[in-house]
């Protein structure tokens, strides 16, 4: 950054006596500059304030629901019933679904992303690299709605045989079990796979960025010692990029937690009890954002409850993203990586 202030004060008395006076460049900015600085600073602060305002207004509007049911009760209750008096609403059932969908998504996306990032940085020629990056970027550009539409009407039917197979053969593992005669459409598993495809680009681009910053000297050293390409990747690239992989996965997790429209289409959005056991392969489940989306235009108390749920989601995604940024920035590989 260039600096207007040239701190070079002439020695007192010296410049006055001899020859043309030496110009002193001062720090005092012109009127235009002062206004310019004020405007840009104002915009920067405005962005900051906007995010704080989002939290504050969600809090204000959710006060009705929160005071009615109590903050702790709201956070821990699974039910969401506004038809009884007093209404019993809680965010836990939604949160459980949100986290499960995001976890399935991450499990699907992370290995695929790491391999794709490796393919881009270590296995491709320049031409193929451009192609791959283009495809990943295009995947990022496809709106959530279209993923939801595709998953809802096309992919769901293709995944159900897998769900059937998993529950029939691996049903003894608790998470793959289903209840008798349960429908396998609209399951957390299906929603998770679609969400995984949607967060794949962001994880890929962070890990790619990190891998590409591996010091070439270390890679060459590994190869010169007789390592194969995979040996080099395992001993140099992956350890170097570990922070980026973790941070990128968390960033993907943050996106997955907030996915709205696709999940609103894919899940029935009925809050689930988590007390019994988790059936990710069968119909059921709700996520915070999808639940909110499906209840646009509801009565004022419900809306207040939705605001409270939104606030919880806001805080969780914000925390996840911030931690992800810190993890990436603190890691050896993450210095200067754009998230």
């Amino acid at each position, binding site marked *: 950054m260039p600096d207007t202030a040239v701190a070079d004060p002439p020695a007192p008395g010296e410049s006055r006596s001899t020859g043309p006076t030496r110009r002193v460049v001062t720090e005092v900015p012109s009127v235009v500059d002062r206004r310019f600085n004020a405007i840009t600073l104002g915009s920067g602060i405005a962005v900051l304030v906007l995010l704080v305002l989002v939290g504050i207004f969600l809090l204000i509007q959710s006060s009705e629901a929160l005071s009615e049911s109590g903050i702790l009760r709201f956070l821990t209750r699974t039910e969401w019933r506004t038809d009884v008096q007093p209404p019993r609403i809680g965010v836990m059932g939604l949160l459980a679904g949100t986290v499960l969908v995001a976890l399935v998504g991450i499990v699907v996306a992370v290995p695929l992303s790491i391999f794709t990032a490796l393919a881009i940085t270590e296995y491709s020629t320049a031409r193929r690299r451009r192609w791959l990056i283009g495809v990943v970027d295009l995947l990022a550009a496809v709106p959530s709605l279209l993923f939801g539409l595709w998953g809802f009407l096309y992919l769901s039917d293709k995944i159900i045989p897998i769900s059937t197979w998993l529950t029939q053969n691996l049903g003894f593992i608790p998470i793959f079990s289903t209840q008798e005669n349960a429908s396998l459409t609209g399951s957390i598993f299906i929603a998770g796979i679609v969400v995984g495809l949607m967060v794949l680009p962001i994880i890929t681009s962070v890990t790619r960025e990190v891998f590409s910053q591996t010091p070439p000297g270390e890679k060459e050293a590994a190869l010169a010692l007789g390592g194969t390409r*995979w040996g080099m990747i395992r001993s140099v690239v992956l350890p170097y990029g570990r922070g980026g992989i973790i941070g990128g996965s968390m960033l993907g997790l943050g996106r997955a937690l907030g996915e709205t429209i696709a999940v609103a289409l894919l899940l029935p959005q009925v809050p689930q009890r988590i007390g019994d056991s988790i059936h990710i392969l069968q119909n059921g489940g709700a996520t915070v954002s999808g639940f909110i989306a499906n209840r646009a235009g509801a009565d004022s108390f419900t809306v207040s409850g939705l605001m409270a749920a939104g606030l919880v989601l806001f805080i969780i995604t914000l925390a996840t993203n*911030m931690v992800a940024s810190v993890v990436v920035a603190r890691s050896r590989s993450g210095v200067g990586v754009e998230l």
Partner: protein
Amino acid sequence: MSSEVLDPMTSAETSSDLSPVDPTPPVRSAPRRARRPREFTNFDVWVLVGSLVSALCLNWLIFYRLTVGASLFGFLLCSYLTFLVVFALVTADRVGRLVATDRVMTVVVVSAATAVFVPLVLLVGYILIEGIKALRPNFFISDQEGITPILPATSGGASHAIIGSIEQVGLALIWSLPLALAAAVFLNESRSRWRRPVRIFVDAMSGLPSIIAGLFIFATLILPFAKSGNPLFGYNGFMASLALAITMLPTITRTVDVVLRLVPDGLREASLALGASRARTVFSVVFPTARTGMTTAVVLGIARAVGETAPLLFTAFGYDLMNSNPFSGSQESLPLFVYRNIRKPDISAIQRGFSGALVLLLLVVGLFALARFLGRDRSKRVRSR
């Protein structure tokens, strides 16, 4: 350089040439043919093809002859896993474990990268095939007036949604662009100590679930004024544009930020040294230099906003008829049109939703291609996220 490196496993016989007993001078004349660990001979191709064929055959036998109720997807998945095992065993037998691991991982990485194409191709193909069926010119001309469930999918259109989308995204651009540009300039050209927190918040904002943006506008501008009856503070396109502006803001800010960073500091210094003010430097030197990149940023912002559905649910709300006034009354937009139609029970509505989805997909992909095209020449390093 790496391709010339001796591989420890394949160079087993070469090492005897290098032993001190050998009278011939070492290193230089040792391997007559350079051994390349990544070489891929015809034989390797046959091993690959053979493994694949044997895996497919074995699985075909199991899936379609010995058992019933198989799905194509499961068959392919199992075949792939079998293929990896067969390939690993054959290669390990031929060239040793170390090289076999390397080869198998190469296959895994390449197939994972190829697998990324699959959902994209399937998605685009599916929406193309389904969307083209009922897409007629009147889709762009008429709205949903007088449409009943018994009418065919080709009747009616989404002109109201297209107008709504254009107005909402256009207004959103008007609100967000100045703020985004100023914020990006602030992040790059100022020396304020607020830069760090602002950058962190912009990053955090880009991870904000878009439905929160809609909920926020709903909470601040629509709910408190609900009783006033003022149409400006009800469900309308203006509110939608505000919500979209919030989702666009971080996208544009961050892309412009990256672009401004690419402007050489020498240009700035030259301008300042000539006596130009900072404001003059930004407007006359930095912005013109980064112009193409900034256009890319704007196009990417539009591409992101035009496909957003979630923020509109609580703001524009959706409407079946033409409402070209964004400041009064609920309004449709293209994503809302798709979302609302595919949730209806009748088939022709779903079909109309697919037509809308196709138009939306083409629009987004077109904008994306435009962004790549614009970003190509000068600021090659602009990443689109």
